[in-house]
Each structure stands twice: as C-alpha cells, then as structure tokens.
C-alpha cells in the first residue's frame, strides 16, 4: 500500500517533461520494459475477466451468489477453489467479482485524477490568493486521516452504498495528485512555450487544455495509476471490514464473509486467500505499470545492463 510513495520520485523525474515523439514511442517503450509488460498483461487479463466473466466460468448458470447445496467443499476438479459456507462456488464468485472491483478502481481513480488535475493546475496557473487557498485545502485533505474518515462516512451514510464508497474514495484520494500537479504546473508556468502562447493572445483555457495538459500527460497517467491502486486497496479494506454492501459481488465482500464464517479457523484457506490474492494481483498490476512508467520517463532508474567493453592497453 506504500507503492504510491514511488510517485514522489515520479514527480521529480516527470517535473522535467520530455516532449514525446508521438504515441508510438510510448508503446515501444512499454514493450521493451518487462515490468510494464507484466503489469499490462495482468491488467488486460482483469479487463477480460470483468467484461466476459462467462468465458472463464462457462458452466455457471445464474448468479454465483445463489446458495448452493454443497457447502464448505475443499478445492476439487468440480469446484476449483472449493465452496463457501453457503455452497457458492468460490472460483465463480471470484471471476464475477472482478467487474465491480475493476469498476471501482477505474472510476474512483479517474475521478480522483480529474479532481487533482483541476485543483492542482488551477492553483499553479492562477497563483496568488487562489493558489494559497487551494494549496491550503489540498494540504488539509492530505493530512486528514482518510481511512478513519471513510469508515465514519460509510457508517453514517448507511453501509453498502457503492456510490458512496466511490465518492468517498474520490474525495479522499485527490489531494496527493493535486500537490504533484501543482508542482509541475508551477515549473511549467514560465517555460518559453507557455509564455509565447500568452503573448500570442491565446485564451487561458486554451493554454491550459492544449499546451499544459499534454506536457503533463505522463504525470497524469502516473497519478491515475496511483489513484487506482489506492482505490482498489481501500475499497477492499472497507468491504473486508463489513462496511460495504454485504450482498454485493466483490472481492472485499467475499473476504468479509470468509472472515465472518471463520474460513481460516475451519481450515478453508482457499476461500479466504483467493479473493485477497485477486485484490493483490490487481493492485500489483497498477503498481508495476506505475513503476515501469517511472523507469520509462527517467532512464537513469533503469536497471544497468553493462555491455562488455574491452580494454585495449597500448
């Protein structure tokens, strides 16, 4: 969960944005980086699982949450990961849960990123009092302990509302990115290409949308990955504690029921560990992509591959 900290150096490395030679360069760079490939592969896998779950569980008819009549089975050929205390097939539940977890990650991640871009870039561009006010708000949100706040919110707002969870994730997750956006925005403000745009008489909105944002694209993507990671882990944590919708089909809820029914104590580790592993895998895919992104934009961080240079002594 501290993977988001890697963003600190991402910001440092990306504070000197490089003009990329088209999107082709990025795809090539991703292909050449093993971490990026692994992360991208995992992410693609999860997207597939979310979009077409029935492809992976072809024998499933109806809702995987329907109570079955063979409770608490160990993993077998019929039930790859066993069954839950209510006879539900763990594997099927796992696959079908991908959708909700992925949606939460992407929606909350996107929302938080958009908000952080708006606040951060505005603060950097507007400067003066507006900057001071926005920075203060950002810092306050940054320091407030968000997990307890989320818990309190989720409790008071009625447990289980998915929209509430997503909104709270967005509200608590934007501040980190806003700080980075502001820092980069400030460093860009007086760059020549922006000054020339101002002198040309371009409107402020044009300058922000067409000149600043494309240059900050790499930082924005890094931020999105970090926010998505944060959302996945926090949402799962919330649901695990029982503050999500207990009837929903998601990994965190599966874990909640597993814990609730004492899966570990009764000797059914698969039921408890599998959903957690799925959460971990999705989180890892974001973290890997994020780290690989770091390396791509800051070549100094790449692992050193020394080619043998022969000495020729005269």
């Amino acid at each position, binding site marked *: 969960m*501290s*993977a988001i*900290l890697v963003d600190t150096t991402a910001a440092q490395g990306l504070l000197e944005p490089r003009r990329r030679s088209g999107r082709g360069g990025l795809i090539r760079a991703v292909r050449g980086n093993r971490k990026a490939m692994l992360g991208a592969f995992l992410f693609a896998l999860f997207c597939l699982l979310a979009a077409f779950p029935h492809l992976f569980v072809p024998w499933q008819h109806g809702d995987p949450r329907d109570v079955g009549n063979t409770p608490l089975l160990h993993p077998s050929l019929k039930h790859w990961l066993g069954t839950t205390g209510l006879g539900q097939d763990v594997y099927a539940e796992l696959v079908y849960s991908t959708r909700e977890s992925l949606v939460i990650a992407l929606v909350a991640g996107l929302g938080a990123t958009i908000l952080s871009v708006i606040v951060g870039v505005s603060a950097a561009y507007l400067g003066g009092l507006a900057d001071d006010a926005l920075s203060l708000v950002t*810092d306050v949100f940054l*320091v407030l302990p968000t*997990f307890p706040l989320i818990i309190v919110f989720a409790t008071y707002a009625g447990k289980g509302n998915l929209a509430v969870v997503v909104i709270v994730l967005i509200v608590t997750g934007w501040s980190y990115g806003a700080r980075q956006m502001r820092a980069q925005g400030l460093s860009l403000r007086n760059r020549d290409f922006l000054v020339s745009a101002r002198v040309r008489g371009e409107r402020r909105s044009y300058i922000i949308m067409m000149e600043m944002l494309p240059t900050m694209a790499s930082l924005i993507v890094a931020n999105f990955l970090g926010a998505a990671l944060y959302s996945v*882990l926090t949402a799962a944590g919330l649901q695990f504690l029982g503050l999500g919708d207990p009837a929903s089909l998601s990994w965190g809820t599966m874990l909640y029921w597993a814990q609730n029914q004492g899966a570990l104590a009764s000797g059914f580790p698969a039921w408890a560990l599998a959903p957690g592993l799925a959460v*971990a895998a999705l989180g890892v895919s974001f973290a890997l992509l994020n780290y690989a992104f770091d390396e791509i934009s800051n070549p100094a961080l790449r692992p*050193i591959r020394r080619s043998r240079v022969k000495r020729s002594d005269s």
Partner: protein
Amino acid sequence: MRYLTRRLGFFVLTLWAAMTLNFFIPRMMPGDPVSAMKSRLSRGGHVADPVQLRQVLAQFGFDPNKNIWHQYVEYLRNMVTGHWGVSIGGTLGAPVNKMIAQALPWTLGLVGITTVLAFILGTLIGIVAGWRRGGLLDSVLPPVFVVTSALPYFWVALLFIVLFANGPHALLPNDNNFDIGLTPGWNARFMGSVLKHAILPAATILITAIGGWILTMRNNMITTLAEDYVRMGRAKGLSNRRVMMGYAARNAFLPNLSGFAMSLGFVIAGTILVEYVFNYPGLGHMFYSATISTDYPLLQALFLLVTLAVLICVLLCDFAVFLLDPRARTKG
C-alpha cells in the same frame, strides 16, 4: 522561523478542520444520533432513562435544547479539554479517555515501532541499493519490492495466519496481544507472551511498508548521484562512505522525509486492518468496534486522537526538514 510558524498555523487549522468535520458529519447524515443512542441504551429490555440519555448526549455535545452554535462551541471545548464522554457501545458507560489510555500503548508499541523501523531500515537499504548500481539489491530486488508494497495489509495478515498460526500445531498465536489468563506485569513470562503475539502483526506491517521506502530512497539516491556535488565529493578524495552518506544520502533523504508525513494515512489504514485481523486490542481495533456499535463518543475521540497524532508527526517531519535543509531555514 517563518517556516516553523507557518507549519504551526497549518497544524492548528487542520486540527480545527478535522474536529469540525467530526462534529458535523453525524448531524448531516440521514438518521438521528439521538434515536440510535436511545435504541442502544434501551437494549436488553429496559427503557432508557431520559435523564441519563440527556446526560450522555450532553457529554456528546448533543443537547437538543441549545442551538447548533452552542453545541459546536461546547463540543470543541470538550474535545480540547479531554472531556470525551462515555462510551455508548459495547462497553456502555466506560469513560472514553480511560478506554483510549488502555489501548494506546499497545498500538504505539506495535504500529509505532514497526512503522519507524520500516522507515529507517527501508531508507538505509535504499541508500545502499542506490549507491551500488548494478548490484543484487539494485537489479533484482526492486520489482520484488514493488509487488510487496502493493499487497493489501489484511491479505498479508491472513497469509501469515495460514502459514504460521493456523490449527492446533500453529507456531504462533493468531490473536490477542498476550496469552489469556496471564496477568500483566514486568516479568519474563508476560513479556515473552507479548512478544510472541506481536511477531505476526509486526511482520505484516514491516513487510508491507518497507518495500515502498526502499524504492523511494533508491530512486532518490539514483537521481542525486548524478548531481555534480557528488562528483565533487569524489574529486576531493573523500571516502566512499562519506560521499555516500554526507553528500548523496543527506540530500536524497529530504524528499523522503516529506513523503513519510504523507504516508501516515496508509499507516493508519494498516493499523485498523491488521489489528482487526489479529484481534489485537489496540486503537485500530477499538475504532472498528466503535464503528460497528455506532459508539459516537468513542469514534469522535478516536478520530480526533488520530488526527492529532498525524499532525504531530507531520510537524516533527517539518522540524526535521528544517534542521537538515539550510534552504528551508532561509526561505521561510
């Protein structure tokens, strides 16, 4: 000096914002704390005494007779002076500050120590990893740490339980902070039991947290090592260690320190989850049970305490930056 006063001002402002949020959230949400408390107090068959209800609620800051502004001021005063009321959850009537005082040392001991340890160890390992480019630490391990730092706290906790603490032949205990039946005391038996119970939760926190620190420090070191002043240090004939620590690490560490302050949110989330899984009676666990039993006074006090702790850490980090970075001292 200006720098410090600004940070202090920020401290006070954030604390106030947190307390205000804490006050208004229950009042903004649907449902009514009064009836919730009433139903809680009326459990077990007997009807709640209205006088007792009002007392409890007044301590909670919710006096329906006064207007909202009075309630707010009263609430602020109570929070600041430590009048945190009594619990209305599972431990009905227990004074909140006593409950907190009991759980606090356990959390401080477990979480406080392991977090600081993870930070220090992670930073040191990161320094070496960044310094020895091309070594084992630098080329093979970073991806490993990327993975470990993205793992959810509760999953690692569960994994450890499965591996080490499950079933009758378990190596280690999987819940509570010391063996049931032992009386607390400064003796070897008790201490030993405490340690045994702390190993798995501590390992969970350590393993999940250390990866991130190693990576950030390593990346910072690599960026710093390219600086001219590091080369200058070598040019002066200084020993490798001196250049690595005094020139490279000293500078690379500064952004890490600010990062530590920002990471405290995760530490708190981790605390709650780990204490929950291991049934460890610290503040995190208390927070969880307070939430489940809608124990408003306890919740509010805990939230305030956590905010205070985070802000104190932030202030300490700011102070450390002030000491270590001469540029912060003069810019103000």
